[in-house]
């Protein structure tokens, strides 16, 4: 079995980095701001492999760079350095971070989906929820209203959104339902890879549980590989096989999720785990 996604040395720096910026930032320096140039190292040197159907967690506090990693991979941001190869894209031979805008759009629409913490980032609130899903289907070449609506109904049913609300805008939905519409949109074209960025943060506990259950069921049923970004260790424990722990833009530890939680090696991870309620 070969990796679905290979990521090497993924780096994002804001501002003008100096020669020693990377040396002088990170967990050992307790900062991601370069003392010489004031440039900010959002993430640096992030490398990992993701296998088909695998669920990888990225955990860390706010500002640790965990969201930056998925935003770079979903092309929401431009990388400063690094490479990523996605197997279904050109047989994994081309660094997708260097692809043209058009190619990147193809990859985003056919090979990936993302669910953002804020539904406004993932959904267009001036379109109906069906229209939001239609956007993904249209980008994949479907121009038949009947079949678009059929597929959208199927996806909404699958994500437990009442189908009769398909023609309402997500603005009139509850937070949990907005997340479900986002998930329906993200999986519209059966992508092999899904990014979930703090998807349950800010939701009520009971709603949170339902969204997590949905994600887990979809994962088991469709076998989608996922990268789950969360500051919440219980989300990570429930969803993931493997976990990267990030601090100040660097991966400080990676391992099997049960090992990270029960036998953490790095001081920061030990602190994180011991802070678990």
């Amino acid at each position, binding site marked *: 079995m070969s990796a679905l996604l290979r990521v090497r040395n993924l780096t994002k720096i804001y501002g003008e980095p100096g020669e020693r910026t990377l040396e002088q930032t990170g967990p050992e320096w307790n900062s991601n701001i370069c003392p010489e140039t004031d440039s900010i190292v959002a993430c640096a040197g992030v490398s990992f492999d993701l296998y088909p159907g695998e669920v990888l967690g990225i955990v860390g506090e706010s500002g640790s760079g965990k969201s930056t990693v998925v935003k770079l991979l979903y092309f929401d941001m431009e990388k400063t350095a690094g490479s990523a190869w996605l197997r279904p894209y050109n047989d994994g031979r081309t660094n997708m971070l260097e692809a043209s805008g058009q190619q990147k759009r193809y990859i985003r629409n056919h090979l990936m989906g993302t669910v953002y913490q804020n539904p406004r980032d993932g959904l267009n609130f001036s*379109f109906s929820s069906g*229209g939001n899903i239609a956007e993904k289907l249209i980008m994949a070449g479907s121009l038949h209203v009947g079949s678009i609506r059929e597929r959208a109904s199927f996806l909404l049913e699958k994500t437990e959104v009442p189908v009769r609300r398909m023609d309402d805008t997500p603005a009139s939905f509850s937070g949990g339902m907005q997340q479900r519409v986002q998930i329906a949109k993200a999986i519209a074209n059966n992508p092999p890879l899904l990014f979930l960025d703090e998807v349950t943060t800010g939701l009520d506990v009971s709603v949170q549980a339902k969204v997590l259950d949905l994600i887990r069921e979809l994962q088991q049923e469709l076998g989608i590989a996922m990268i789950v970004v969360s500051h919440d260790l219980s989300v990570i424990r429930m969803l993931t096989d493997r976990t990267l722990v990030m601090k100040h833009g660097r991966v400080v530890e990676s391992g099997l999720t049960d090992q990270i939680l029960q036998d953490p090696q790095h001081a920061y991870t030990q602190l994180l785990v011991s802070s678990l309620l």
Partner: protein
Amino acid sequence: MIENKKYKNSYNFAFIDESTKKEVRRKLLKAVAIPGYQVPYSSPEMPISRGWGTGGLHVTLAIIGPKDIFKIIDQGSDASVNACNLREFVQAMTGCKTTYDTTEATLIQTRHRITEEELREDQILVFQVPMPEPLRSVERYEYRTRQMHGEADYAKMWVSLYESYVRHGGIMRGADYPVKVNGRYIMAPSPIPRWDVPNLNQAKTLYLFGAGREKRLYAVPPHTTVEPLEFEDVRFAIEKFDSLCYKTGYRRAFLDELYLDDGSRQYVINDSNFLDKIEQGGEVKPFINPYIQQIEL
């Protein structure tokens, strides 16, 4: 009134100076070379305000020659105030012959219509365009719409058509119906009615579009494929009139709705020259397209 003889005769032919004309022509060449692509241009100052037909006027004045016969229509009419003023201006600045007769004209400027009579290879139709960006309704940032055109990323446009269908049961766009030109760029055909849209496809005539306020030129060269955006199961359709022209009994033309003095409602042919010709029993050679052909006579 004091006559200013000194300046009266010192205007350049067709008002605009030659180097500016050259710039406009160069941009027009580019527009013709990339059908449907919006080319930015200088949009020089004119003696009328931007947004009142300056874009069309720039194109007209840049390409008109002394032997051209000029016609200008506004919403199908040769006689509207706007058409009269611009006709007078072009005539004064060029000395060209003007006409109402669609078949006689070599250069026609128009606002919101294509003529009912089919245009020929030796004619040019210039559109005055208020909003050249078809994606503006779905994307407010210019840098984003340019990127979307560059990458042919038109999903949002399609979603807005889908939304229109969901909300109204059909694609509700009376005028300025978005079209795809030469299989590539989505273009705003200026606010012509849907009736005129099929006449852009594989036409014999060169169509030039000028948007003065937005400083954009674009073109549909002769024999270019122009398709209205439509879904496989929700098709584009032209306007349906539940009546015929009360003056002529004619059916296969774009009709205006009229309220007569007695309060009754009637329909009349919108294209004034076309109406005149039919009323006088003259011969007309209208555009023929599959949509018009479906209308029973």
